[in-house]
Structure formats: structure tokens, C-alpha cells
């Protein structure tokens, strides 16, 4: 069953690659024309088209692009002629670092808050946690980011701009990226916390929860040992969705904090009409989405004895 899932994931990525390629094909304008601009003569245009392989039929160009991408060769940037793999490499690392940082903060916090809110449901704590979560999720992320800059960067506690390079130490990185990570945490925690709470509360009326109460188990044990294992599937899925968001949806936050991640790169590439870079980044984002959802499916399957242990 897990093998089928993986095969489906690969098939899905393949379709996505076709869509990405097709969509960029549809964009108006001629690449050679864009690159040469005013100075273009019919001869130079023809030569450049030949050099870029633009005269080949679309399926051939797609095939060349796909096989290149599979071996890590995304071609060269049309804006500055550098290999795209080099452009992406460091930035992908930065994006993943920020995503993991935000996830390391938000996943435990949202699980703990969610469990406690379910345990003390309808209490002051539950209401406060829910209200806080809703508030955080209601503000646009750039607003949250600027508020944090106002409170925490203006006072000099944390830097408002992230200046990192490959030589920055791990500790410095954590310190410098704290504000973007905190912003992202505030944005994604609410969703995960509320799902954890709802998934657990949903089960609290089950006969096996009543049985646990009648066996004299404590409320905390009931929630952790009897409800949580059965609530894992929806929680895992919502975490995966939020992790995917942390990788692919952080463009605004990266721009606010001038963070050198993939989102920035994509925005720049779009404004420069650097189609090859846009394609590459879009493919990476899609791969992240598919891979994380695949992982969520596999984990949900593993945590469900009814799927793992047949009769």
C-alpha cells in the first residue's frame, strides 16, 4: 500500500512538471527577444534561439529540461548566465533551515497547547489559547512580521534584517533568523493547535474513552494514551500541510526580513522573466508538497494498527 502511495506521488510530480512547463510555454513574448532586448538583429536572434534550443519542438525541449532536472541540472539562468543549480543550492538550504527552525518551534508548542486545551476544554486556558490562536491566524503575516520588528528589533534585541552567508555559525544563524521563524510560528501554530484539540475532543465521547475513565485512569493519561494515538492521522496531515507551507509559502516573510531563500529567488526571477529559474523553483516547491504529503500518508498508515495489522 505504501509502495502504491509512492508510485502515485511520483506520477503526480510528473504531471506537475508537465503543467509547469506548459504554463511557462504559454507566457507571452520570446525569450531570445527578451534577452537581447533592443540590440536584437534577426541574425543574432536566430543564433541565440539555436543556441538555447528554442527551435526544437516543445516535447523535445520538455524532455531535455526534465532529464536535466532529474540529474540536478536545471540549465543556466537567462538573466545572468549562471547555472541555476548554484543559484538554488544555498538558497534551498536557507529555506529548509528556516522551515525546520519554525517547525521545531511550532510543532511541539501546538501539540502541547492542543492537548492541554482538549484536556481542560471550556476552561479559561482553553478559551485563551483559542482566542490567541485565532488572533494570530487572522493577521496577515507581513503585519505580524512588522509588529515583531517594531517590538523586538527596534529595541535592539534581534536583528530585523537577516545577513547570513555560508560562513555564519549555527548559533548566529539561530539568533539572526529568530524573528522570521517566530513570525512563521505565529502563523502556523493556530492551525495545528486547533486541529489537535478538535481531533482529540472528537474522540472523547467514544466508548473506549469512557472505558478508560471507568478503569480509573487520570484525565491526562486518557488524553495522551487513549485519545491521542487515535487522533494522529488528522494531526499528522495538518502538520504536513503546514510544513509544506513553511517551505513554499514564506515569500512575504522572506521579503520583509530580506532573507535569502527560495521565495525571494522566485520573486526576483518572475520580475526578471528568468523563466528557467521560475520553472526550477516551482518544481522544487511542488516536490516539497508532494513529498511531505506522501510522508504524512505513510505516517498515518503506520500509526493505524487497523491498516498495519490485517486480520
Amino acid at each position, binding site marked *: 500500500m505504501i509502495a502504491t502511495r509512492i508510485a502515485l506521488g511520483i506520477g503526480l510530480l510528473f504531471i506537475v512538471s508537465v503543467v509547469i512547463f506548459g504554463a511557462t510555454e504559454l507566457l507571452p513574448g520570446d525569450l531570445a527577444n527578451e534577452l537581447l532586448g533592443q540590440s536584437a538583429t534577426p541574425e543574432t536572434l536566430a543564433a541565440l534561439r539555436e543556441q538555447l534550443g528554442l527551435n526544437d519542438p516543445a516535447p523535445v525541449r520538455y524532455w531535455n529540461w526534465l532529464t536535466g532536472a532529474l540529474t540536478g541540472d536545471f540549465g543556466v539562468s537567462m538573466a545572468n548566465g549562471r547555472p541555476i543549480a548554484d543559484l538554488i543550492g544555498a538558497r534551498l538550504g536557507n529555506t529548509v533551515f528556516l522551515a525546520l527552525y519554525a517547525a521545531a518551534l511550532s510543532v511541539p508548542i501546538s501539540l502541547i497547547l492542543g492537548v492541554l486545551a482538549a484536556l481542560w476544554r471550556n476552561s479559561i486556558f482553553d478559551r485563551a489559547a483559542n482566542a490567541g490562536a485565532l488572533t494570530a491566524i487572522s493577521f496577515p503575516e507581513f503585519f505580524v512580521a512588522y509588529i515583531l520588528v517594531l517590538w523586538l528589533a527596534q529595541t535592539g534585541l534581534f536583528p530585523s534584517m537577516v545577513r547570513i552567508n555560508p560562513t555564519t555559525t549555527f548559533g548566529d544563524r539561530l539568533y539572526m533568523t529568530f524573528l522570521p521563524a517566530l513570525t512563521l510560528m505565529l502563523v502556523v501554530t493556530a492551525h495545528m493547535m486547533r486541529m489537535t484539540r478538535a481531533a482529540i475532543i472528537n474522540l472523547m*465521547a*467514544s*466508548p*473506549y474513552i*469512557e*472505558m*478508560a*475513565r*471507568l*478503569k*480509573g*485512569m*487520570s484525565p491526562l*493519561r486518557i488524553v495522551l*494514551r*487513549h485519545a491521542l*494515538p*487515535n487522533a494522529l492521522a488528522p494531526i499528522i496531515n495538518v502538520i504536513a500541510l503546514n510544513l509544506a507551507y513553511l517551505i513554499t509559502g514564506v515569500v512575504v516573510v522572506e521579503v520583509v526580513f530580506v532573507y535569502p531563500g527560495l521565495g525571494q529567488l522566485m520573486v526576483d526571477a518572475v520580475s526578471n522573466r528568468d523563466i528557467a529559474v521560475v520553472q526550477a523553483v516551482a518544481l522544487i516547491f511542488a516536490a516539497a508538497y508532494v513529498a511531505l504529503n506522501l510522508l504524512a500518508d505513510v505516517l498515518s498508515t503506520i*500509526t493505524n*494498527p*487497523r491498516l498495519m*495489522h*490485517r*486480520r
Partner: protein
Amino acid sequence: MAREVLLKIEGLRIEGRAGDAWTEIVKGIDLTLHKGEVLGLIGESGAGKSTVGLAAMGFARDGCRITGGSILFDGIDLRQAPEAERRALRGKRIAYVAQSAAASFNPSHKLIDQYCEAPVIHGVMPRDEAAHDAIDLYRRMQLPDPEGIGFRYPHQVSGGQLQRAMTAMAMACRPDLIIFDEPTTALDVTTQIEVLAAIRDIVRQFDTAAIYITHDLAVVAQAADRIKVLLRGDEVEEAPTRQMLEAPREDYTKSLWAVRSFARPEQPAPQAAPILSVQNVSAAYGKVPVLDDVSFDIHAGRTIAVVGESGSGKSTAARVITGLLPPKSGGVLFEGKPLPLALKGRTRDQLRQVQMIYQMADTALNPKLRLRELIGRPAQMYLGLQGKALETRIRDLLDLIELDPDTYIDRLPGELSGGQKQRIGIARALAAEPKIIICDEVTSALDQIVQEGILKLLTRLQDEFGLAYMFITHDLATVRAIADDVVVMQRGRVVEQGPKAEMFAPPHAPYTELLLSSVPEMDPDWLTRLLESRASASV
């Protein structure tokens, strides 16, 4: 038998919340239980049996609250004691066995882990010892493979085995008192006696006191020393088992005893050709074969009962007839002509002729639709009724099922009792004006008195409209009451079939014999005698 008093409940009052209002559902119950004694608690649903049983653990479900009286367990006042003290008693000195073991075991953990939880958490014994003990108790409960069964997940174990595993789990801390809340109600007759016998034996072995809650008198008669009858939160009467069975004092108790006196008069043998004929049907779910060469006939104006334990293929046969599951081979004739096998191939008129009534009226009725729509829809779809004609038809149907149209026509299913919902299921089937109605365990989820009402209604409608019923059930008392013909199924095959009189007279096929002898009788010695006779037969 003047042993020490273990549990003493006095003047117990419990309120339940319905919407915003609190209504009293237990109205001043007294109950005394001595050490090692088994008390049967009897009544129809809504009588407050389970609520009283849970109150004996100092527990009230969400939406219920204990408002009066005292609950003394071994000198501890469970109403006054702090929650921590109550929690320390639950699972350790007072244990609970729930009606549906399949739902009450946590699907995420292995049986033995759930077994060990109470002894370890309550500090009775370490895990190794508890696990060792579990195997011993599994063996005493006559579970197959006692060493290995604990390492399975609940979904890997059958319902009857789970119920025994749950009883073993309740025994884990050797409690003084166990509350059995309808432990055999959800089981087949054949499984029911095995579980009943195992429960009775283990309670005796460990000299455990028990409150045995059920709505089946014959079942409680086998296990209880005393019986207490409840009705709508009030006590009707209490007496030692034998005395209660032989000489019930109150009219209500007598009515409980008399429920099964209903019987439809014998019908003359069928003259005409069968209206529907199932011919050599074999069917499978995917690769799993479920029906093997099944044939039987359904006659107009007669009831054919299809009996057998769960998994015997009764409901699958109904799915084949209705076209929901096209058979692998064989076919279905309606009035002599073959019906298309799949639902899609059938005409609207062919669909109209066979209607179904389901076991769980709760889930078979769309909770968002008013009765007008629930009943009106088939009349509209199959018969093209509109406007005034439709309204009249809906009202006639409500009259037929003995519900006042003015009161009920705009109600939602949620506003009806279980028996009323089942009546709506009947009206919905009737609305299509079918020739055949398939009743799939339609009375199994209902109390005996409500069951009787439904059976009488079905019989009256049958006589009035000449309907043919296919009655799927595992309850042989119902078969005795209303069937004309009987088909006995086991593992997808027809074991025996014929007119009722023949089926209930010996000699029987061995499986029919097993089914018939498993129906509990209103005699406290029935189970003992039965087990003895089976033991001697198997030697």
C-alpha cells in the same frame, strides 16, 4: 446468605439533560448488594439501568448528574469522596464490562496492553506479573490461544472473544464488584451462551459480586441470584430469581414475561407460484466468497425468515436480491421473469417491487429531512404523486403506521423514539407500494415491548396488502412468532429450509439444533442443563 453488605445505594436520583432542561431519569432507587452476590437489573431502554450501574461506580456520564441519595461502597461514600479516591477504586475494586467490546477496546493498543493498564497504574502488580496473569485469565475465559491472543489488536479478534477478553480485563485487579452492562446483547445466540457461561463461571470462581444489566430476562435468569425490575427510573419490584420467574407480583413484570406470546396465525400452504425466486446464487466480496449456491422462494402474503449467526450471508442474500451486489453465478426471478442482476440494469418499476427496512433506523433515516419528505420521496419518485395527492398519501401512510399525521408530519427523525423511527422505516418502504419487503434485523435494536408492537404492525400490513416479507434475523423467538417458512444459513450456505412447523420439530440438521438449543429459556437451570448435555454429547 447473610454476607457482608458490599454496596448500598439509597434514594438515588439522577438527572439527565435534554437541550437546556434537566429531567429526572432515576427517581429514587434503593439497592443493596452483598459480597459475592449477583444482582440482575432489568428493564427496557430508558429505564435507567445503565445509569444506575454507572452510579454504582460513582460515575455519571456527560449530560447526567447525580442529584440525590447516597452510594456506599464498602463503607466509602462515593458521592462525597474526592474524585481521586473514586478513581483509585475504579478498575481496581469496581470494574466495568461494556455492551460493545468492539467499541470499548481502544483500537490503537494490543489487548494485553489494555489488560495490564489497570493493575500497573493502580499499583496492584508489576507489568510482567499482570501479563502472566492475563494469560491465565484468558485461559479461564476459554479464549482460543490464550498465550497469543493478547498480542492482537481489537480489530483482529471476533466480537464474542472481545467480550470475554473484556471480562478478563475487568478481573485483572480481582475487583470486589463488576458491573456488566448488557455484555451479551450484541452477540449471536450461539456466541451469547459461551460468553454467558464464561462470565458466570469466573464470577463464581473469584467470588466477585456483580450487577448484571440486561433487557433479556432469560439471560439474567441464568446468572443472577436476585432480580430487580426498573421502569422509567423507578423500581417495579425485586425478588430472588426463582421467585421472580415463578411468581412475579407486578403487572409490568408479568407483561415483560408475556411479550413473546404474540404469534401470527398459521397460513395455508402457498398455492400460486413464488413471487420471487433466488436460484443457485453464489456471490463474493472481491475474492472472499460469501454465498455458495443459495436458493429459496418468496411467496406473496407469506413471511420467509432467514436465520443464522453473523457472517452467515443473510444480509448478503438481501443485497443480491435488491441488486446491490450482483452475484457471480445464479440469478433472481421476479414473477417468473429474470431480474437484471445489477441495480443499474433494473427499471424503476422493478426497483419499486422490492423495498428494504434496516436494522438501525437511526442511521437509515436522513436526520435532516422531515417525515413528510422521508415518506413522500418514494411516493413521488415511484408513483409520480404530486401536491394534494402526495399529501393525502403521506397522511394515509402515517395513519397506517399508527402515528398521528397532524402531530408527526413535520417532525425530524431525531424527535422520535427508536420504535417510532422504525415505523417510519416501514412507512417509507410501504410508500413505494412494493410486493416484497426485506426486513433486515428490524427488531434487533428494540426493546421487547416495542419489538412486539412492530411485529404486530408488520403482520397487520401483511394481511391488509398481501405483502411478502423476507425477514432476516438471528432471533429465533421472532421467527416463531411471525414466520411461515424458514431458511437456516451457515457460512454462506443454506443448511436447512422448509415450513416453520417442520423446522421447529425434530429431527434438525446439527446446526439448526445448535441454534435452537442456544435460545435462552426462562428457567434459571437452563444454562447448566444445556452445558451438561452438550458436554456429555461431546464425550
